Structure formats: C-alpha cells, structure tokens
C-alpha cells in the first residue's frame, strides 16, 4: 500500500525557451506531488509537456530550456533537499543514488563500443560504490528481469534485442538502490507483449525494493493498469490528477473524458469511439484562458478569458476546469464503462466508499 507522504514536490515549474517565432513555454506553472512508494502515471499526448515535467523532477531539462520554480525532494531521513539549488556534483550523486531515470529513446543510451558489464562497472566507480557488491546486485536485478546475467553482461548493446536492452537499462538504473525511479516512455518502442511483461516486472521490483515510480506514457490503458495515481497532461499543464480509479472511472476534465473515448480497447463497441476534433495549442501561442477551450464542448466566455484553477473534487481528485459538474453529461463515456455501470455520473463529488 502507498503511504501518503510526499517524496517529491514540484511547485510553479515552468520551462521556457526562445524560438525564432517567440518564447515557447513547454511547461506552464505546474504543481505536482509524488507520494512515497506509489506508482504515479503521467499521461499525455506528444508535446503535452509530460517529459518536461519528468525531467524537471531531476533538474534535467536540456538546454536551451530554462526551468524555473521549485522542486523539493524529501529523503527517507534527513532534511528536505531543494533540487534546483543543488551544486552540480551533488546533483549528479543524487541522480543515480536517490532518483534514477530511464529516459525516452533509452535503447540508444548504451555506448555501442562497450559491453553491458562495463556500463555497470563504470556507474559503480563513478559513485565510489563497492564493485563486488554492486555487480552482485546487478546480477540479481538482471535475473529478476528474466535475463541471463552472464550472457547479458558479456554482450554488446547491438547483440541484444530491444526488449532485452530495455530491461538491462532498468537494471542499470536500479544499480545504486535509488528510492525513486522516473521512467519516461520506457516501453514505447517495444511490442505490447514485451511492454506488458516489463510492466509486471516493474511492479514486482517496486514491491521488492520499495520504490517510488513515476511512469510517463502516452498509452492510457497501460498507465490505467499500472498506476496508483494518474496525472493527465494537456498543453503543458497537469489538467487532472487523482487516484487511478478517479481519473479512469469518473474523470471530470472534459479532455480526460475525450481521451478515454479516443483510445480503442478490446471491449469497447466501435460506435463509442470518438476522435478528439481540433489540435493542441502551439507552445509559442497558448491562448489566455483554458488551453483546452478551443476543443471543448463546454467552453464559454469565462473559460476563454481566464485560466481555470483546480477544482477540488475530493481529497484525492482535482481537475483544472470550471465545468467539472457538466463534463460527465457533455462528454459521456462508453455505456459499458465503470461510470455507467455504477450509475455514478460523477456530479456528486466526494469519494466512493
């Protein structure tokens, strides 16, 4: 079970960079918390800012992006750490030892001229860790990921399949026993069978090593299966956050609801599928009010004039929309969805027992 205390807190995080056409804000004043030992899923379409939010948690936003705001890490013991104020060397230590990251496109992050063993050894010496113990842990992690340690450690990256490389990379990220693992689209390039297999392994590792996991993906069904809590990103902001059941079964932001109707799954009847009309806003030219207004059936003058604040729907569930009460009727979910089955249209706020 997740313990409800915060391990990472992000406030007012903004990432901006200069483009020829003007200043682009690719993360816009985002507040987010990650609870200790939970799996937080961040979903959004490409360009929604989900990777930026993940990188912000480690102050790993790449140039020319400029990150402002605050990111606080609360270690198991010891004082809170302000990540954006850390000197470079301390940040480097923290990144592997406390918060580890598996980046998008990770399949290319191995050095092609080194075998997998050298990658593990280098990481250990860069952090002055005991090599023998470290390699013992590496073997243990690799076996848990259904890999043959001897075979994999002796291989060069090109000798491994995509799914094997990805698992080796997860083992590498966990080598120094971090508390938090941030995974940005870690399975996107893989087949569904491998994705799903890796998810069940991630869950196993999370339980065993008491990890906190932030899992970023565009694949809503995958995140629904995995996460304890889900945050939905749209146009550079977190528009709805809640427990997985809040967000998947009684979503209250019109965008979340539209997204649920746009993703095919094996049970849904065909005529319930509905694409989302229109395009996401340009980061150089974000409209003044709610960024979703142009595509939203509920949008009115107020939505277009002002950015909506969070509506607190329960202790665990919030959405940035002033029409959360009308959203269930305006954007109905499929008839066989949990919401329809339980007769819960979501208009009564508060949690289900």
């Amino acid at each position, binding site marked *: 079970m997740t313990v409800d205390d915060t391990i990472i807190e992000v406030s007012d995080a903004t990432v901006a960079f200069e483009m020829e056409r003007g200043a682009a804000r690719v993360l816009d004043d985002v507040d987010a918390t990650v609870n200790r030992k939970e799996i937080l899923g961040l979903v959004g*379409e490409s360009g929604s800012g989900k990777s930026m939010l993940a990188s912000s948690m480690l102050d790993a936003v790449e140039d020319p992006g400029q990150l402002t705001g605050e990111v606080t890490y609360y270690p198991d013991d010891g004082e809170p750490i302000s990540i954006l104020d850390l000197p470079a060397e301390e940040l480097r230590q923290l990144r592997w030892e406390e918060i580890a990251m598996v980046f998008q496109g990770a399949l290319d992050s191995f050095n092609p001229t080194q075998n997998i063993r050298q990658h593990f050894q280098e990481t250990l010496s860069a952090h002055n860790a005991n090599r023998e113990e470290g390699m013992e842990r590496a073997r243990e992690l690799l076996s848990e990921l259904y890999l043959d340690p001897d075979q994999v450690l002796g291989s060069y990256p090109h000798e491994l399949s995509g799914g094997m490389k990805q698992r080796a990379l997860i083992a590498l990220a966990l080598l120094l026993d971090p508390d938090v693992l941030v995974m940005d689209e870690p399975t996107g390039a893989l087949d569904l069978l491998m994705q799903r297999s890796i998810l069940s392994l991630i869950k196993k590792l999370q339980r065993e090593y008491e990890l906190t996991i932030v899992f970023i993906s565009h694949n809503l069904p995958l995140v629904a*299966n995995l996460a304890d809590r889900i945050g939905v990103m749209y146009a550079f902001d977190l528009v709805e956050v809640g427990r997985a059941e809040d967000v*998947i079964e009684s979503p209250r932001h019109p965008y979340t609801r539209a997204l649920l109707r746009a993703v095919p799954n094996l049970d849904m009847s065909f005529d319930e599928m509905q694409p989302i009309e229109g395009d996401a806003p340009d980061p150089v030219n974000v409209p003044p009010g709610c960024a979703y207004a142009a595509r939203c059936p509920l949008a009115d003058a107020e939505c277009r004039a002002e950015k909506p604040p969070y509506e607190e729907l329960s202790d665990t569930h919030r959405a940035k929309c002033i029409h959360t009460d009308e959203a269930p009727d305006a954007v109905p979910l499929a008839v066989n969805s949990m919401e329809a089955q339980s007769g819960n249209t979501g208009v009564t706020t508060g949690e289900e027992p």
Partner: protein
Amino acid sequence: MTDEPVIELDDTEVHFENRSGLLDLFGDTERVQAVDGVSLEIPENDVVAVIGESGCGKTTLGKTAIGLQRPTGGSVKFRGQDIWEARDKRRKADIPYDEIRRSLQIIHQDPGSSLNPNQTVLASLLQPLKRWEPDMTREEMEARVLGMLEEVGMKPPEDYAYRYPHQLSGGEQQRTALVRSLLMEPDLILADEAVSALDVSLRVEMMDLMLELQDQFDTSFLYISHDLSNARYFAGQADGRIAIMYLGEIVEIGPVEEVLENPQHPYTKVLKWATPDMEVKHGKVDSPPVRQIDIPTPTDPPSGCRFHTRCPKAREECTTESPDPIGNGDRKTACFRVDPEHTYWESEPLEGTDQEGEIL
C-alpha cells in the same frame, strides 16, 4: 473484373541470407526464415489485419504480398497472375507488371520520412499521376490532387497543397501519404503500422478515414500492426479478418470477433493478455503467461511448433511435430489442441507449462 482474389499467397516463403558484417569473416551465413509456408487470399474490398511481435515477419509478409519482396518459395498472384512471372516475362504476362505495381500500394509507419522533404505536397502528389496518367493535362491532375486532399479532410486544399512536409502535422502527413496511394486507384493498400506513429487522439480518426475510403474506392487493406486493439477497431468495422503471426507463420486466422472472443491458439491468448484494457489494477499485472518473454531468433526457429519454447500448453509432441492449420472456412488455427483426437493429448506436458486439470 475477375472473381480471382486480388492477392493470393500460396505456400509463400521468404528466407534471407544474413551476413553479420566484417567481423564475421569465418562465420557461416545465417538464413533468416522471415516468412514460411504462408497461404492467404485477399479478395476485393476486404480487410486483413496481421498481428505479431517485431521480428515475426509481418512486414516481410506485407511487402511480399504487394510485390515489393520476391519470395524464395511458393507464389504470389495478383488476380491469378503470378507477380514475379509478370515481372520476368514483361509483355507476355496476362496482366502487365506495371499494372500490378500500380494496383498494389503502401503507406508506411513514419509518414514524415515517406514524403520528399524538398517537395511541396502538390509536387509530391503530382508525381505518380505524371507517371501513370500521361494523358491527363496539368490542370486535370491538379484538380484531382486538390479533390483528393479535400476528400481526406485537408480543407481548404489550396492551403495544404503548397506546404512542405515539415509544415504538416503527423496526421496531415499520413493523410498526404494516403492520398498519394489512393491516386493510383489501387486494389490493395498495405498499411504497415500506419497509425502507430500518430498521437492517440488521432489514431481513431485516421482509421475511420481509411475505412471510409475503403468503402468508397473498393480498396482492400492489408493492415499490419503489433496492436490488437487498433487492429480490432480497423478490421472489425470492415467485417475483415485478423491473422496472428509467429516466427514467420500464420498461427491463427479468422473473422475479427471470432478470433478475439474465442482465441484458439495459445499465442493468440498471450497477445490478448498483453493488450491493456482500461481497468484500474494498481499494477496487479500477472506474470507474463509465457515460459520465456523473449522471442527466439528467426535464424534458428525452434523445432516442431515454433511457439513451443514459450507456450504455456506445450507438450512433448510439440517439440517434434509442426501443426498444420486446421479449421473450416475462414477460421483456421495451427495448434494440436484444436483437434480433440490428436496424439498431443497423450504426450507429456513440458516443464513449466500450466495444464492442470487438462485431459492427459
């Protein structure tokens, strides 16, 4: 038009010689068995979705079906005419090779890289017309291109015609690629992971568009993907079939809902497990229902049934004998378990399989 299927694959086989490069001077050349003994008919106005993991040979099968890859065994016929005979014999063929080429089109996974970055949309789209419709005037060609752009929802078409590919969104690029193949009035379009690169909110829209055009132009689609939900959406609406491929072979084929609601091959069941539903599970995902999560290399496929090394239902029989596809009509499955009389049931379950309570 004849009653012959648009495409007929008969015991088609594609094996590649694979040399591993300079470092492998003394190694033997490996033979990759990309496609092995596949028979498949695609009639007019039909949709077939081929599903499988990467490396299962589905892309090679697709390319072979539209005449882009020469098979090393068996045959590929377009309306009864062997495609490679037509190519080799040129004018002596019943259906000229040029006509075959034009009738079989492809849309790729990455729409950006399939369009020439230095050409406007209009220039890209005029090219095939110039080649195949030499009698059309420039004005007629432009009118045709603009009409098609409008047809796929790129309105007003004049706005899009003079843009370069990088000025289009991913969805617009994919529509442009679709227009380019439709301009040929093809009989069959190979759509290889055609929506996988698009954003989730655009995939349904793109599939709807392809279905609409399929209906309107009587085009058949060979749709290739690793994603069962999208395949179900696409092929299911067209009352099409789904074919499950594993290591070069079609292991199960049939009408979409029949295969998905009542999968017969253990591998089809595994793929269903791998397809996430919208259920909230807090990560309570069961262990993968396969004995090995990595796919064996196609250079050295397992003996007997190729799935036996991973299959949760494998028995001794499966390690030596390769099951033939059996079934009636549209529905066929290559697994001993479909036949209740098979000697499989008397043979010993393999270690690590889960067959509790099943007749022995």
